[in-house]
């Protein structure tokens, strides 16, 4: 028993913890370097794929991080809102607009823009109503209460998707051609990857502008720092929280559209994507917007490298384990995340 205790005490020293953490990172670095040397072209292709994937994760992760920053609540329902938004986008693009792979490029681009103009406000309102109905009454309850409610809401939203769309998968991935936009040697950058970034990057810029410069954005940052003090300064806290949920909902709708164009989705896609995106938010430092984007891209890269590389890669069977292993490792070794500040929650 005494030996066990001594070993545990040794392991708790910051020096030792940091050492273990850094050597883990070094191992990953070596693994990547060997793969790069063995198959450079494949490595870059897989990396580009990871960047595309990561940009979607970043959008969803921002929704988690915005809400967490302001309410300290993990909004479990967020992933399911994302999945529902993607399915609704399918209805808009395919069923209502009747787009297919034969449609002209202009029609498809216009369809996507109009589709976003429909789903983003719609899901802003849906996400805001979830907050109004399920979380606001629990504002002063013990902290576990809204968290448990969020888990319940997550199941309700995913069952709404199930009721509306059944268990079939939906995809609009044939709308955008997989033809190369440009090629350098064996490295191929396709139009499809470009479209994902073409949607994600403007949304990120708009979000940054909103949070940095507008009055409401400043109010959000103030409430995130200290709700009571900002209430005393005349900030309408409840309205600010609602706005945050609106923002998160429209980000989820943006991500839903991109995901629908790139991959396939069904009613339970949101569960797994939500967990991955939450991990991304934690990796970057939850509550930190730049951190969520960084975390999203990192997780996207790790997933693609794991599934696409050939030398000692575990493959897609283990993706979930790896993502959650990273989550646990981050929480053990650096609870504040890569860009976050030390919080009382960790350690």
């Amino acid at each position, binding site marked *: 028993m005494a030996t066990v205790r001594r070993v545990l005490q040794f392991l708790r020293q910051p020096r030792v913890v940091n050492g273990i953490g850094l050597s883990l990172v070094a191992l990953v670095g070596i693994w990547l370097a060997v793969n790069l040397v063995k198959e450079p072209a494949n490595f870059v292709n897989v990396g580009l794929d990871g960047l595309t994937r990561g940009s979607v994760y970043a959008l969803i992760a921002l929704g988690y991080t915005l809400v967490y920053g302001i309410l300290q609540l993990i909004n479990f329902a967020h992933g399911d809102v994302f999945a529902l938004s993607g399915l609704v986008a399918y209805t808009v693009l395919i069923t209502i607009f009747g787009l297919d792979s034969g449609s002209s490029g202009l029609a498809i681009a216009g369809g996507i823009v109009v589709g976003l103009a429909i789903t983003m406000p719609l899901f802003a309102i849906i996400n805001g109503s979830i907050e109004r109905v399920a979380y606001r009454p629990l504002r002063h309850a013990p902290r576990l209460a809204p968290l448990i409610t969020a*888990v319940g*809401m*997550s199941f309700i939203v995913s069952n*709404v998707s199930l009721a509306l769309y059944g268990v079939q998968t939906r995809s609009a991935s044939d709308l955008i051609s997989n033809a190369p936009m440009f090629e350098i040697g064996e490295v191929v950058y396709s139009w499809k990857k470009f479209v994902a970034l073409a949607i994600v990057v403007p949304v990120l810029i708009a979000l940054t502008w909103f949070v940095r410069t507008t009055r409401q954005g400043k109010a959000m940052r103030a409430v995130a720092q200290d709700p009571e003090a900002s209430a005393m300064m005349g900030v309408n806290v409840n309205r600010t929280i609602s706005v945050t949920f609106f923002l998160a909902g429209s980000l989820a709708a943006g991500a839903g559209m991109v995901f629908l164009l790139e991959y396939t989705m069904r009613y339970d896609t949101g569960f797994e994507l939500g967990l991955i995106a939450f991990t991304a938010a934690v990796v970057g430092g939850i509550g930190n917007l730049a951190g969520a984007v960084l975390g999203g891209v990192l997780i996207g890269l790790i997933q693609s490298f794991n599934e696409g590389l050939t030398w000692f890669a575990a493959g897609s069977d283990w993706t*979930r384990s790896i993502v*959650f292993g990273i989550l*646990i490792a981050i*929480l053990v070794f650096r*609870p504040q995340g890569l860009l976050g500040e030390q919080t009382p929650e960790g350690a």
Partner: protein
Amino acid sequence: MTTAADRARTWVSGRDRSLWVAAGLIVLAVLYPSLVESLQDLPLIGDFVPSVSGMVVMLAFTTMAIGLNVVVGYAGLLDLGYVAFYAAGAYTAGWFASQQFDQWTFHFGSVGIVKSLPGIHLSVWLVLLIAGLFTLVVGILIGLPTLRLRGDYLAIVTLGFGEIVPQFVRNADEEGIGFDLTHGAFGIAPIDSLGFGSLGERLGLPESFQTSTDRAKWFYLTAVLILLITVFCSVRLRDSRLGRAWIAIREDETAAAAMGVPLMRTKTWSYAIGAFFGGVAGAFYSSFRSGAFPADFYFNISVFLLCMVILGGMGSVWGVILGGMLLAYLNVEGLSTIGAKIQDAGLDFDPTKYQFGIYGLIIVAMMLFRPTGLIPERRHAIELEEGVHDTPFYDVTTEATLTDRDPSDD
């Protein structure tokens, strides 16, 4: 001399009523298999009476819910990955009581199978205990790195483990890790049955439940026994020094630490003990189903168990039994019976398809309207009725000063 007798007498009188209620329930539970047929013949409600084998499943899940209640209800640690313990228990049963490791042949107290059957075959009674202990170790291993975290971070890490363990068992075969530990996506089957062996046969007890004519009844009685032991341990633990430390941590972690409660050790124990019950119930259930399949272990089960605890009342053992039996009933037979009734009435709606949406609704509705659950824990109820005596130092509304405070309020 009299003190012991007195103490015994006050003990009895203090708990007289609840003891009688409990005894009555136990008698009813034991008689259930012989009553069930006449109950099912009743008009109107007869269709809704669960079968004996349905009851076995309900009892196994209720046992897990009581284990989860130790973690969530007593110690206030939100565990969203309890399914990991269920899986650990089920696979322990697979390792020690099936043909999974057919490179060895080892029998110890196995019943109902020929002694030459390859694989490790321990007596399943023993396996239940081993499963509990193994899961307890798993609980400690999961707990040690994560229990430093508070609240929602802990929830998400347990959720992570709850996802990793099922994926691990799905992949841990020859192809995945180079050694066939869990037989991959096929799962381990058949798992040996409980039974009393040749010794029991002489006493008129079945040699093996699986081959006995009253299979469901014997598994049912075992499930009742396991549930009773779990409830007893759970209640005694709650009132022990450790249990009071859990409740202190739940109410206020900082204050508990200041009063000298060792946080890490106390939390790890709650994890370990919660895991133990989950492991025993998991092993029992896999013996009943005679298999452990990776498709059974997914996040929804964790939420399902959590829902039982919340519906019944976090921390309240009787509440969790009620909540567990109700929800497990809906899961096993209730929803499909109700669905059949609805379809008979001409509506095309299948509630089993939306069962998790229904559980989600229950969770949200309970948290919003009755957060203490169906049968609130006594402590919670008292707090709600009488308040928690936190008189402010300066009460500006009545212009009272420090010296005017009623000492009984402190």
